[in-house]
Each structure stands twice: as C-alpha cells, then as structure tokens.
C-alpha cells in the first residue's frame, strides 16, 4: 500500500512537473519556423493538388464529376501526397541522466526531456505522428499525444543505465534516441540493429554534462553512479583523467561507427550549451533535406 502510495505520489510529483516542461518545450518549439510539409507531388492526402485527365487504369470512382462536367474530358482530382511520418522518441530516463555537475546547469534528463518534447510538438504541428516505444504510445498525430508523451517522459527509471526500448518499433519510422549512452554498448547496438532491420532510421543524440567531458577531479575519490550500483575508487583522480577521456572518445567513436554502419546519424549536446541549437539540429536532421 505504502509502496503504491509512494509510487503514486512520486508519479504525481513528476506529473506536476510536466506542464512547465510542456510550456518550456512549446516555447522552445516556437523558435523553429515550420517549413513546408507537403510532399509537393500528388499522392494520398487531403489537400487538392491538381486535376488531370483520367487515364484508363484510373478507377471510375476517382473521376471528379464536377470538373469533368465543365469539359469533355474526364478529370481525376489528384490530392497532394501527404504521408505522415512516424517519429519514435526514446529518452533515457535512467538514473545516470539525473545529474548535473553544478546547480546552475540543468540535469541531463531535463535537457533530454525538453528536447524530446519540443521535437514532439514540432512533429505534431507538422502533421507527423509521434510515439514512444514500449509505453503503449504508438505513433499518433493528435494534439493529446503531446500530453501523453509529456506524461510518459515524467517518470524516472530506477536503473542506472536504461537500455533503449525496441519492443514496439513502428516500421519505417524515424527514431530519436536521447541518452548519455554510458550504458552497455551492446544493448544500444542491439536496439539500433533491431530498429534498422525494421527500416527505422534515426538519430542518436548524446547529452553530456561539461564535467563528464573534462573530468576535472583530483585527489582520492570514490565515484558513485547516481543509482549507487557502481562504485569506483581511485587514489589519484587526476591521473585517471586521460584514461577517462580516452574511453569517452572511444565510446563516441564506437557510437559513430555504429551509426554510420546503420545509416543513422549522431548528435552531441552539452547541458551547458544552448538547447535551441540542439533543437534546430535535431529538427533539420529529422526532417531537413528529406522533402
């Protein structure tokens, strides 16, 4: 009971966060000017595209009689091709994301949620379908979807490093994985492989704290993971710096390799940097040049 209660309470606390998050995300999203979303060719869609003379293989049903009646030729009303894309958002809600080196910096998870939600808002405004894997949130294009996503983003995962969820992965969707990617690399690789097999292409977006990239520590130190499951003790933290930075670079290279092999893209964002830049990059990577 008490566990349930506390969980419920926690959830409520978290949910209480999401209107401001939503607001922030919307404000962030307004900074991106929506471009044209029509495919600019005829296809399935609602908007009128053109009338063309009916051809022999056209179904009779397609003949637009109002137009045809003005002339001798039978016309077919074509609509603009408006295939809605599905975007799958995955945000690492693991404990490792819930950290910032300074109180003046946002936590990584906050930045990740913000970006994810902003992308979701942009996508839905753009008529795309947005969903999340595994959270019973298949891609939809309703306004309510944003709220659902926001709610889904408000829950913290207990584990230190959360692997990407690849259970429900809509085929041929686009995917956005936001994480620090400190977790097990093989799981990430597996997820991406599975996703790629389903025809999903996307972006890996790594969010890091500045201190995670500089490792400015000295002296005898015990490093705890945020969840407390992993601990590493060193007598001279300053000597670990180069090793750590090497490993970080190695990890980034591996991620890049993985991405190039699968045709995905990888992005990087530091919590100390401006979220707008990250959002713009994400927006263009997800939609840009894909007309």
């Amino acid at each position, binding site marked *: 009971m008490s566990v349930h209660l506390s969980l419920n309470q926690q959830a409520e606390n978290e949910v209480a966060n999401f209107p401001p998050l939503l607001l922030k995300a919307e404000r962030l999203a307004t900074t991106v000017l929506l471009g044209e979303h029509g495919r600019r060719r005829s296809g399935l869609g609602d908007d009128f595209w053109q009338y063309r003379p009916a051809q022999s293989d056209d179904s009779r049903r397609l003949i637009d009689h109002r137009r045809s009646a003005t002339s001798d030729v039978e016309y077919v009303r074509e609509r603009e091709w408006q295939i809605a894309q599905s975007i799958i958002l995955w945000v690492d809600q693991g*404990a*490792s*994301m819930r*950290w910032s080196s300074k109180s003046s910096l946002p936590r*990584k998870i906050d930045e990740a949620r913000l970006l994810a939600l902003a992308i979701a808002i942009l996508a839905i405004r753009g008529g795309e379908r947005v969903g999340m894997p595994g959270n019973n949130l298949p891609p939809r294009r309703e306004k309510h979807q944003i709220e659902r996503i926001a709610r889904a983003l408000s829950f913290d995962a207990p584990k*230190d*490093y959360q692997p990407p969820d690849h259970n429900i992965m809509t085929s041929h969707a686009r995917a956005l994985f936001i994480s*620090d990617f*400190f*977790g097990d690399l093989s799981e990430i690789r597996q997820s991406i492989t599975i996703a790629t097999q389903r025809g999903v292409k996307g972006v890996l977006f790594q969010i890091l*704290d500045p201190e*995670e990239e500089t*490792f400015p*520590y*000295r*002296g*005898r*130190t*015990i*490093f*705890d*993971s*945020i969840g407390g499951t*992993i*601990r*590493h*003790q*060193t*007598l*001279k933290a*300053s*000597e*670990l710096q180069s*090793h*750590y930075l090497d*490993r*970080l670079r190695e*990890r980034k290279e591996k991620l890049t390799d993985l991405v190039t092999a699968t045709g995905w893209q990888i992005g990087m964002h530091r919590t100390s940097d401006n979220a707008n830049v990250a959002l713009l990059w994400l927006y263009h990577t997800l939609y840009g040049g894909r007309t």
Partner: protein
Amino acid sequence: MTILGGLGFTAPWLLLGLGALPILWFVLRAIPPAPIRRKFPGVALLLGLTDEDSVSDRTPWWLLLLRMLAVALMIVGFSGPTLNPKENVTYPNPLLILFDGSWANADQWKANLEFVSTEIETAGRASQPVAIVQLTHPEKPVFQTADAWQIRLSNLTPMPWLPTQIQINEFIQTLDTTQFDTLWISDSLNHAWRNTLLAALETYGQVRVLQSTSPLFGLTSAKFDSGIINVTVVRSQTVSEQEINVLAIGTDPTGTERILGAKTANFKQGDSNTQVNFDLPIELGNRITRFEIQTTRSAGAITLTDDNLRRREIVIVTVREEEGPELLSQNHYLERALSPSAEIFSGALLDLIPANPDVVILADVVTLTSNEETALTDWVKNGGTLLRFAGPRLAASNLSRVEEHPLMPVRLRAGGRRIGGTMSWGEPKKLSPFDITSPFFRLSIPDDVTVTTQVMAQPDPRLSERVITSLSDGTPLVTRKFIDQGQVILFHISANAEWSNLPLSGLFVKMLERLSISRPTKPPNPEDLESMTWSPNKILDGFGHLNDATNKPGVDGAKLISGYLGPDFFPGIYQHQERRIARNVLKAGDQLELTEWPSYIKVESPLDKPEISLGGLLLACAIAFLFIDVVATLALSGRLFIFKSANAVSILLALTLILTSKSVQASDNDELAMLATSELILAYVVTDNPEIDNQSKAGLMGLSKALFNRTSVEPGNPIGLNLEHDDLSFFPLLYWPITPTQPTPSAEAYLRLNAYLRSGGMIVFDTRDADIPATSLLTPNKKQLRNLTKLLDIPPLEPLLSDHVLTRTFYLLQDFPGRYISREIWVEAMPSSNAQQIDGITFHTLNDGVSPVIIGGNDWAGAWAVDNNGRPLLPISRGFAEPRQRELALRFGVNLVMYALTGNYKSDQVHIPALLDRLGLGQ
C-alpha cells in the same frame, strides 16, 4: 616543577611523547587523505581502470609539518610549561611579611603588593597564618588567616620616612616565641639596624628578601646660588651613565599646577649625585612649589620649596633727595642688606604697585598723594608688607600725630627724642632682649648696637600688642600693625646710620629676614627655631603626593630642622606666622646607599617576571594550527569553496558591520542633543565594565517605567553617556556607578562635569558595595570614588537626614534601599542656620539648588533593573522581603527623579500644613 632550559614543566614526563612524533610522521604519510565521495554518471567508463601509482596523493610536506607542529604543541602544552618558573617555596611555619614600608619602596609598591598577594595566597593554600608588619609603623605581628590579610593588603601605603632604630628596637621587643618565617620586603636602602633585625628574625625561622633591582633616585633640597636654583639629584647605583628629568612644578596665575621648567640631570659613571640648575625668571622661580623627578613616584623624589627659594620683590620708594654722600642716603643700607636675596625696584610708587611687589619700603617718606595712599592701602590689605623707617622728615611731620594714620602702626609724639649725643644727656640705648612673641625671638643682639635718636610712640591701649622690639628702657623700637592680610611695620629709627648703628649690624639683616622681607641666605639653625611650634601646611605621603595637612600635629622648630621624620612628623611644608619652612625627605648631603645582604639570603625582585603558564597559549596555537590544517586540507581536496563567494562576501560584510557598528553608535553630539531634548531622559555614566553598563541601563529603564506608570514624569529610554565626549547638560540626573578599575576622566571631562554640577546637574554616585560591612577599611570602589571625585567641585557633604527633602518629594520615605539597605547616603550639607522649627519638625530651606551629588552604595540600579518584559533582573539580598524592598527602592528612585526635577519644591513652606496633616501631626 622541573625546569628545563629556563622553562618549568609541571608534567615533564609528557614531553617523552615528543619522541613519538617521527612515528606519527610516517603514519600520517602512509594514510592517504580521506576520499571524497562523488556522484558521477560517467563512472561506467572508469570501471577497470587502475591507479598507476599505488601511493595516494601525498599529503604535502608543509601540511604534514603543520600537523606535526600542532601535535608537538599539544604535547608541550599539556606538559604544563611555565615561563619564569619559580622554585617552590614551602611554608612550614607561619609567614611574617615585613615591609620596610618607607618612601624608597613607593615606586615599586604596587609590584611589591602583587608579589605579596600571591605570596599570601600560597601561604593560605598551605593553611599557614600570615602577619604583615610595616617597619615604618611597627606593630606586634598578628598572625591571621591569609584571607583576612588579603583584604587589608591594598590599604598598606608606604610612609614618607625611614624606619628608625627606635622603631626597630620596639618591634624586636614585640616578637614573642612562636616560630615564623619571614618575607622581608626591603626598600633596598642601607640602614644601620638592618643586620640587628636580620639576626633577630633568623632566630625565628628562615628569612627571604624581596628587593627591587631598579635604581632609586632622590632629590635633596633646592638651593639658591647666585640667582640660579640648584637641585641635587642622588641615586642609589653608581655604575652606569644615566639621564633623569627633573621637573619644576608650580602654579600658574590661575592657580592650576603646571610644569614650569624641566631639566635633565646627567649622571656620569661613578657619580652618586649630580646637580641640575634652573635659571628661571624671578616671576616663574617664585611660583615653584616643588621639584620632582619625572619618572619616579616617591616622597624622596620630591623636594618642596619654601621661603628660601622665594626671591621677594621689594620696592624702595625714592623721594627727591639732596645730592650727598651715599653713605648718608636713607636707602643705601637697605639696598645693601636686601640685594643679595631680593629683587629691588626703586621708582615712583604708583608705577610699581600694579606689579604687586611683596614689600614696599618707605624710608622716611611722609607725603603721599591721596592716590598713592589708597593704592598702597589696598595693596596692604591684599597681603602686602609696608615697611617704614623714621627719619628727620617723619619726626618733623604731623603724620599720625593726633589720629592714627591707616598706614602707620602707632601714633607718634612730636619731635622724637635724642639721647647720648653731645647736646643731650643719657647713654645711647641698647635693645632689650626679644620677647617670645616677637618675630625676632632668639636673635642674638650684638653688644655694640645702640640707638641715639628715635621717634616716640604715643602711649595707647593697643600699643603693647603692636610693639615687637623695644629698647632697654621699654620705648618701642619696632612696631607692627596688621591690616587685613597685610601688615605695616615701622622702625622708629632711620634706615641710615644717623640715628642708630642698627642698620650697620648683622642683626638688621636678620631682623629683615625674620620679617620675611628678605630671604635667609643660609638654612636656619635648629637653635633659632627652638620652642616655636610650626604647624604643617601641606604634607607629603609616601608616594610623593602633596596633601592638605588636616589634623596633623605641630612640630617644634628644632625638630623641624634636625629631627627624624616619623608618624608624628611628616615631611611637608610647615608654617609659623609668616614664615614657611619645607621639610623634605632627603636633606642636603644625604646619599642613597644600597643595602648589602649576606650571601646566604635569597634576594628576589618584585620585577622578576611572574610565572606565566604557557600551556593555554600553546594549546590555543595547536588548535589554530589544526584549524589551518582543516582549511588547507579542504582546499587541497577541492572542498573549500562549498560556500558561494556571495555568501563569503555577505559574511565579511556582516563582520565588518558588527565591528563598525560601535563607531557608528558613537554618534555625534547633535544627534544626542536631539534625542535628549525631545524627551526627558535619564542618563548613566558608561564605565569600563559592559556588564555594569547594561545593569545601569536596565535599572534606569525600570525606573523610567515606574515613573511612567506612577507619576507625570514620562521619561524616554535611558542613555549611557561617555564623559569624554558627550554633552551632559541635557540630563537632569546622571547615574554614575563606580567600578574599581574605572579610568579617571580627562581634564576636559572634569571641566564639563563641574560645569554640569554648577549649572544644576545632579550626579548620583553608587559605589554598589554597601553589602561589604563598613569597617575602617576602604573598599576598592570607595577608593576609586575618592579618586574620581577629587577634581569635582563638590560641596561639603553630610549624611542624609531624616528630614531631607528627598524623603518626601513624592513618597514619604525613611529608608533608601537598593539591592542593599545601607542607610549611609551622603548629600550636600545643609547650612544649619536655615533650619526652621515648625511645630516640632525641622524644615531646612536650602537655597534653591538641588544637592549636586548623592553618594551611596546600595546598588540602586541593580534593584531597579528590569528585563524587556518588565521582570526584575537581579535578586535582592533579602529573600522574603524582596518585593517590599524592591518597591521601596523604586520609590526612592521616584523621589530621586522628583528631587532632581523639582528641587526643594516640597520643602516649600506652602506645603508644610498639608505635609503635617499627612504626617498626622497637624492637629
């Protein structure tokens, strides 16, 4: 106590712990600094990494050193190190503390008392009785508990004389058979009786000696030597060269004491005495009252001056005279007699009188204009001495013939008489021996002094009292009349040798000396002064303070010159009629010789630095080091700047605010004036003790509240005043608690205080010590009160009478309790002539003022004191009657303020019937 290299240790074995320091060094080096725990998501990337170097970040050597130092300091600190350690003195026997107690001790008196105080304390801890004897005032030693003496210790003062052989003998005889050890506080001077007494004391037990090592200085009498004042400085040690400042001190025309001159005495190596010469203008020279050594505080370092140093200013009035041989001149002999010792001015009277000379001599001058006469009369009345000589003109004139002239001592018969000449019969007359009432008493009369011509005095009822010298046939030769403070003296002979050969004789000079007309050139002989009683005017105490000689006995003249100083003969200034003689502690030719103690006697010095326990200091250092270590460690491990810089800034700001708030509080006087005049405000004097100040404030607060509630006086919050720079004039009442350590206000502060008192202010002095039983002893607070009020303009006081206005200004009161219930309260004495009896009750109608001071010791502020909630702060001495006593204390306070505000209103006659009614005595 073990002494190692000049330091004493109470627990020396602890020092062995220092040997463990190297081990500690290695241990500290081996133990890495405590790890910092950090949350770090990137820890996953660290897994599997190992430190290349298994040794942790070493603690830096300086930090290690700091820690080692801290530990070493702690070890040394706990081992009880003591600076200037003293050998333990055991007290197997009662302790006799023997003070020489002479002026030579005065300079070191305080140090001596401190030493003795600790000595008594240790004797007390060994539960040995103590006795204190001052050899300058010997008594039979009374062995009492250490505590009893501790209290009385501060009342010992050095005496301005040296113990005499007789006193020592008396003292030795008082000793009985009990064993005791002696601590002898020596004045370091050599005395003849020293060894006798030492031998006597050694039969009773051990003798230790406390003797100052600092050199002694003294001044012997000042002399005039051809217009220059010579002061001889003597010193006890002759080894090194030294420079000593000698000050000439006297009063300026307004009567305040000033330094009139300063000279440096240079002692060469081997000199035991040296001289300083003061060459001062006569005006200044005459003002000198004493010489003193600047740095030394003792009766021996002061020499008082008397008539010997006064060069009198004498005006000899000249009249037109025929040219003639000088030897026949009226003034020639006078000038010859007076010039060695006085300044002589001659000229017109009206020109010289404004210079206020000491003596005006009219030698056969008869005619004075009325202007001259009034000027001269006024001058005589103000203390001048008019010396007249007869002569042919006086004899021929009608001056003072029928009626006594104001400026003549007697009436004169016409013509005078002539005896023993060629045309007259009879022998030239000789002088008859001087009478005991005569100022010339005991002057020897040379055989060949004769008088041939003189003016004769009219017989008169008052003639005999005016005659101070007569001839062998009884006719007056010198007559004198006092006019107010001055005198007129007439020599019935001429001032030249025509009428008598007296002006040619040495007797004439001595007579002039005796009349204080000229200054004696030689110190007086004891024989000359014999059987005259000289009364003390000012006396010196052992410290060299000049005090008024109240109720000190007179001294025989012979003793004055050659007698020993003692309890019945203080050094000081002695007076007989017009003459003043100073008796100084050191006489001309006195030397200061140091005493030599036998080698087996242990001689300590009060200046031996007191034992200082270093333990606390070292431990404090250790803690400070550890604190630095904490900061340094934090800084090294990057944990120092937990506080944001903004916090640090605000902390700093707060600190500086706290520090500066004091100075801000000391607001300028304008603000104070605004505050004090906007409301009635009770004020107290800020002392050196913040606790007392708070109590005064709380007390006046309580009183203000009571006034507010009960009377139409509605005071504001009380204010503490700093006497040095605050204006007092706005406050009707100043409450001044006395603390023993209160610094004496500056001269300007006293000026302000006196102005305050004169302009109707009232100061309530509270010594807060009425709980200490009144014995003959002065409490430290009372002593300080005396010190503080010495320069205050305070009228004569009397204990508060039961009919004083203060008893009925608001409440009818007969007791004036504070926290204590002493009835000893002093107010300005009421002139008894003002007392009026009305229906059996005495009412005093004082002049309109309020008694400027009220002095008591009941700690009134303590009784009035309330906290912010109006609850009493301090308990009152009596438990059960407490509320009543507090109420009475408040009532007294109310009366006090009413008294300060309304003065003698309540003693006004108008209210008497009503008051009598209320007292139940009306009908």
